């Protein structure tokens, strides 16, 4: 089956992971997505470690490879008039452009919505930035850590109460901004079917961060309480990571029919857990060290996969704290066919995560191509589609346009 978005053409001019990931979400559903990179250096992510094989190389950055699946790639200097002209020609037939320039800069580059939509009224322009297109922070510098800080995540969500704020790994605020952008694009596509008009979507990474922890604004506005990090401190049954024979696990009190300690006492064969002092959440927190000393040695007798199998059979809910290697080797994901193999000339074939959903039993993730090499599709797109001659392409290269 061709991808759901296979009739769409997407151009990506994203200098940041959020924009790249947003375009990837569209590309993974079959949209013909062209990544436009600055000549010579390309996307900064190409140069950020870690590198596959540990060799620094623009086609070996794991982040670049992971965030640019199913895209074609060209190089073009949109800072030069001739480059802008070529980009403008591509933009005329584009359905979606994803960009992440600082808000003030797009006008000078002719990449603002007014200019682009005049030539192509059906265009959907998605701007994914840290603080949005307007407001007092519009010109602020950002990155994932700043978004976690200013979005309230750092102060209140991950770390320990007695320690400085600490956040989540792996640029999750960039990703959540990107996911919101993809939802917005779909809404705009439905609207365009009615009106024949595109739109300008303004995604803010800071706001995406605020939107993720619902235990932030809501408790404050309802109770005046300012939520503080440390939710897993001393929380043996509902937050801490506890060692097993070959890894770690996090328990929950879910699936226990309202009698969590009886259920776990039975499962772990540890009658001490039914002591009344552990009956309430407050009691468990107050006596957490004692509780830990009862639970931890029992859990340490289990291997992760056995623990998962047996708790599942009892209806108990746990989470194995899996290493990325354990995820890659997961028998569950293997049986579901979640990973998609993409063969890259520089790294060889590797397993890439799917989209997270299956449609009529099929993995919804396209397996068209791995991330593009720098300028890989220059000839195919600039000559094959825009009609430049190879000679003209040579001139562009000499002028450092491609």
């Amino acid at each position, binding site marked *: 089956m061709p991808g759901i978005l296979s009739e769409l053409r997407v151009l990506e001019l994203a200098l940041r992971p959020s924009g790249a990931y947003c375009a990837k979400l569209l590309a993974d559903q079959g949209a013909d997505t062209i990544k436009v990179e600055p000549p010579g250096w390309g996307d900064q992510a190409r140069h950020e470690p870690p590198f596959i094989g540990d060799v620094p190389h623009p086609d070996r950055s794991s982040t670049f490879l992971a965030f640019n699946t199913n895209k074609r790639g060209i190089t073009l200097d949109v800072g030069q008039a001739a480059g802008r002209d070529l980009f403008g020609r591509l933009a005329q037939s584009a359905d979606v452009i994803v960009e992440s320039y600082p808000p003030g800069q797009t006008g000078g580059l002719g990449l603002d919505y007014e200019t682009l939509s005049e030539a192509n009224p059906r265009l959907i322009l998605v701007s994914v930035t840290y603080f949005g297109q307007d407001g007092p922070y519009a010109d602020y510098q950002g990155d994932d850590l700043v978004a976690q800080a200013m979005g309230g995540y750092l102060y209140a969500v991950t770390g320990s109460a007695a320690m400085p704020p600490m956040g989540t790994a792996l640029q999750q605020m960039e990703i959540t901004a990107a996911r919101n952008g993809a*939802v917005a694009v779909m809404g705009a596509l439905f609207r365009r079917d009615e009106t024949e008009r595109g739109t300008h979507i303004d995604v803010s990474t800071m706001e995406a961060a605020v939107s993720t922890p619902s235990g932030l604004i809501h408790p404050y506005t309802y109770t005046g309480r300012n939520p503080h990090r440390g939710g897993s401190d001393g929380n043996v049954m509902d937050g801490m990571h506890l060692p097993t024979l070959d890894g770690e696990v996090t328990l929950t009190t879910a699936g226990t029919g309202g009698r969590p300690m009886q259920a776990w006492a039975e499962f772990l064969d540890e009658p001490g857990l039914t002591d009344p002092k552990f009956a309430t959440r407050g009691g468990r927190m107050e006596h957490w060290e004692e509780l830990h000393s009862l639970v931890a040695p029992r859990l340490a007798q289990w291997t992760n996969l056995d623990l998962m199998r047996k708790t599942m059979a009892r209806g108990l809910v746990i989470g194995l704290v899996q290493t990325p290697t354990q995820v890659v080797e997961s028998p569950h994901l293997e049986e579901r066919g979640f990973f998609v193999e993409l063969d890259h000339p520089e790294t060889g074939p590797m397993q890439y995560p799917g989209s997270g959903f299956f449609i009529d039993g099929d993995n919804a993730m396209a397996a068209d191509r791995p991330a593009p090499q720098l300028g890989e599709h220059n000839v195919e797109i600039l000559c094959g589609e825009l009609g430049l001659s190879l000679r003209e392409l040579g001139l562009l290269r000499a002028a450092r346009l491609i």
Partner: protein
Amino acid sequence: MSEKGVLDGIRVLTLEQVHALPWGTGFLADLGADVIRVESPDHLQDRKAGPFPDGKAGEEWWNEAGNLVYYGTRNKRSLCMDVTHARGKEVFLRLVETADIVTDNFRPGTMQRFGFDHDSLSSINPRIITLSSTAYGYTGPWRRAGSRARTVDAACGLSYLTGYEGGPSMRASNNYMDHSVGNNVAYALLLALYQRKKTGRGMRVDLTMLETGVSAVGPAILEAQRGITRDRLGCAHWWKAPHNVYPTRNDDRWIVIVVSSDEEWENLKDAMGSPDWARDTKFDTALSRWQNRHELDQLLGEWTSQDDDLELASDLQARGITAGACMTARDLVNDPHLQEREYLWEFANPQVPEVRPRVFAGRPYRDAGNPMTLSKVAGLGQDNETILSELAGLSQSEISDLQADGVIFDAPRPDESRP
């Protein structure tokens, strides 16, 4: 909103609890779909979860819009009906005839037990799209297991990589993954509707929390295949320094500062008045700054300790330095940027006026073509009558019978315990 929502005419029936799926169907409601949340009178945990206004559950506690109620029912309609009752089931199937989408987040098997599996619904309505949002999916050895957002952070690899530098792994979030999954639910449903426009046929979507989580940690998944391990670094970075959280002069108030290049380091040095320590050659290059980052963090933290967090962040940003205060919920509610962008929505629920206006998080994007507002937070069974008369074609006396016979409800059962 004068203009009709872009999904006007699309109807979603959703059997949903807790957070991830309600967050996802909420996007469709915001875009104008008629999202009917079918609530069970026997599972009112979401409406009990709070927090309640000023910490106290009121008389009509089920409509006071605790966390899960507000995020789960906003812009939706509520039908409180026991679908395990034969007549409830009959009504539900009649509604399916008028629906475009049916979603659930039960464990696999439950929808089949109700007679609501995809094949059964599709035989009534071939254009129906069904989506089940589960922990691990309908196939595979873990399909019967349940989850919480936190257990998915763990299982997908995210929590293993999260933790203070040199310390143990920690849960990455409390419910970040619910939101990530909710976003993916919205995306998948909109894709399915888009596809149906082309084919005219419904489809089945099997969406999982685990796999959505893994899709968000792609770099680590690739690294693991080639033997690359990531150390936990807290707020520090693989190659940038300074890149961390620093104390300020106020108690438990912090600032993050990020330096990505020599130029940015020079800029930060200037901002500090070029103290002797910062001129030390060991901080001159990106590599040497990273190698000496613990000392650098210590010294920089001594400098930031002299200032107010919000003022310092604002001063540094004015100089083009990447920095931000660690905002609290109180800061966010009063933040001039979020206010000017109208990100925060104040809402007073006319159903429970005693709750008074409260502030809610909006959507993190603006699209003038698809404006979104908060127009309603659905009370329990608030829309029973209109749904049953207009969509299921029931008469007033039939509806009264359903109420009298304990099939539909607009309040908890009399013996329901208070939160």
